[in-house]
């Protein structure tokens, strides 16, 4: 059982604050680190992996400091985002080299390659591998010493759906075995499918924490904004504002549209078409005006 603890950690690069006073605990099982690009996910993972010193605060594994502690790598396996990985070696040579650096040998390398189902291509040069194959060999190199902690930076980037499913399956298995698996992603669906626990990071701050239902709820129970065009905007506005699911409507003359703020997402989506039908109004455009992940995240941060 291994638990990573990030305690009041900040990290800045010059004047830029990449991570701002974050405290979180990563326990055994699969945890997703969710956040938009540039939110500080990689910085956090690099600190957990001992490649970056926190400017402030501590990062520990079961009470032991990670930074400048080469011994910690007996317990941690790292799957970096970057592609550089000794392309001139074959997959097997690469994993064997990683095993040897742990003081292990061919047997452990073979076991790791079997775990990621890469035996069929293990004697091909890495330079000939597809993105998914590279990712799996990286996984094998991280698993070769049977670590209790596995850190993966954006592991699904650039993978096709089948490769993605295979890797999810593998990570789920690792989590079920009691390992502490942490992966970062900027895609909510990815994290939802895999992680039993989610940590949300936005603009260097810890925005939310919990299981996916809690995170989902935080994201749906918030004011939603819609841009609506119809053949009778004023009549529609009058009918909608009478319902408590709508908290505000602006008639945007320049756009020739209504800007509607809904507080009860479920009720509003059912209300709008019914009101339109009852009043004989034709809806021309209905589009969420702030559905981008960024706006969802910025809402979470403000909450």
């Amino acid at each position, binding site marked *: 059982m291994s638990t990573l603890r990030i305690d009041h950690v900040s990290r800045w690069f010059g004047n830029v604050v990449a991570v701002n006073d974050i405290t979180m605990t990563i326990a055994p099982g699969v945890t997703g680190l969710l956040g938009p690009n540039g939110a500080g996910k990689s*910085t956090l993972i690099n600190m957990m992996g001992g490649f970056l*010193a926190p400017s402030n605060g501590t990062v520990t*594994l079961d*009470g032991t400091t990670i930074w400048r502690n080469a011994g910690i790598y007996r*317990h*941690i396996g790292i799957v970096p985002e970057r592609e*550089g990985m000794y392309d001139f070696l074959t997959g097997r040579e690469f994993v064997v080299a990683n095993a040897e650096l742990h003081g292990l040998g061919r047997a452990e390398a073979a076991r790791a390659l079997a775990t990621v189902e890469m035996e069929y291509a293990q004697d091909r040069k890495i330079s000939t591998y597809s993105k998914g194959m590279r990712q799996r060999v990286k996984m094998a190199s991280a698993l070769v010493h049977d670590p209790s902690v596995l850190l993966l930076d954006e592991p699904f980037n650039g993978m096709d759906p089948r490769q993605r499913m295979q890797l999810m399956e593998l990570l789920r298995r690792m989590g079920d075995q009691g390992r502490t698996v942490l992966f970062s992603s900027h895609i909510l669906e990815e994290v939802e499918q895999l992680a039993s626990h989610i940590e949300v990071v936005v603009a260097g701050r810890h925005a939310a924490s919990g299981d996916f239902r809690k995170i989902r709820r935080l994201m749906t129970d918030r004011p939603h904004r819609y841009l609506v065009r119809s053949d009778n905007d004023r009549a529609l506005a009058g009918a909608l504002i009478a319902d408590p699911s709508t908290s505000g409507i602006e008639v945007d003359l320049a756009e020739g549209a209504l800007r509607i703020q809904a507080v009860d997402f479920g009720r509003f989506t059912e209300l709008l078409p019914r009101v339109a039908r009852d009043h004989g109004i034709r809806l021309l455009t209905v589009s969420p005006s702030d559905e981008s992940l960024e706006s969802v995240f910025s809402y979470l941060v403000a909450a």
Partner: protein
Amino acid sequence: MSTTTPTAPPAPAGAPKVSLFHPTVARLTYRALLGRRRALILFALPALLVIIALAVRMIAGADDSTAGGILGGFALGTMVPLIGVIAGTGAIGPEIDDGSVVYLLAKPVPRPTIILTKLLVAIGVTVAFSAVPVLLAGFLLNGNSQQIAVGYAVAAAVASVAYSALFLLFGTITRHAVVFGLVYALVWEALVGTLVPGAKTLSIQQWALAVGQKAAAEGAIISDVQLPLAIGLLVALTVAATWYAGRRLKALTLAGEE
């Protein structure tokens, strides 16, 4: 899994012992060095030297001053530092550049061990591709008369050590290590070092020649630096560069591309 109270430290995570050499790091390093296109220069330059030596011997016959000119000018002045640049920077620079160094660093292997191993590989490659061909070319040119072949080969070997340490350090400092290495080797050593008298004291080539001078017959090889000073500077540079490269690697941070 609902563990939120693990307080026990991880199973024995004692600091790994520093050793001089790790065979796996060495294997990865020399395969990377000899597997790149740049490695062609490693083969081409010594081949060129041997061909020149052979041609000169056949056309002009054995002559000590011609031999000294070729070995001192082309071999020590240009070839050895170039090979040092390729081997020294190539032993670590590309790995830091493409991020693959992570696979070495995320291991219970002390970082000084990684640097020392890489230094040894760089020295080995530089000696093999510079000192050995210099010796061969020397014998071809004048049959080692006045110990000229041995003297220059010793100088090349000594220079290989210092160049490797210096350029390995460059590789940990900047991604433009090759450019800096070339500027040092070609502009400083070859140009400034031969034209400006004071600069000669700060030239690896001159220090190495001081050692070679001792190995050759009296007056066959000339250096502008006294032997004790030369040895002192060679050792100081090699130790300091290696120490600092180790420090650079210890604090190497791999910030994401955020």
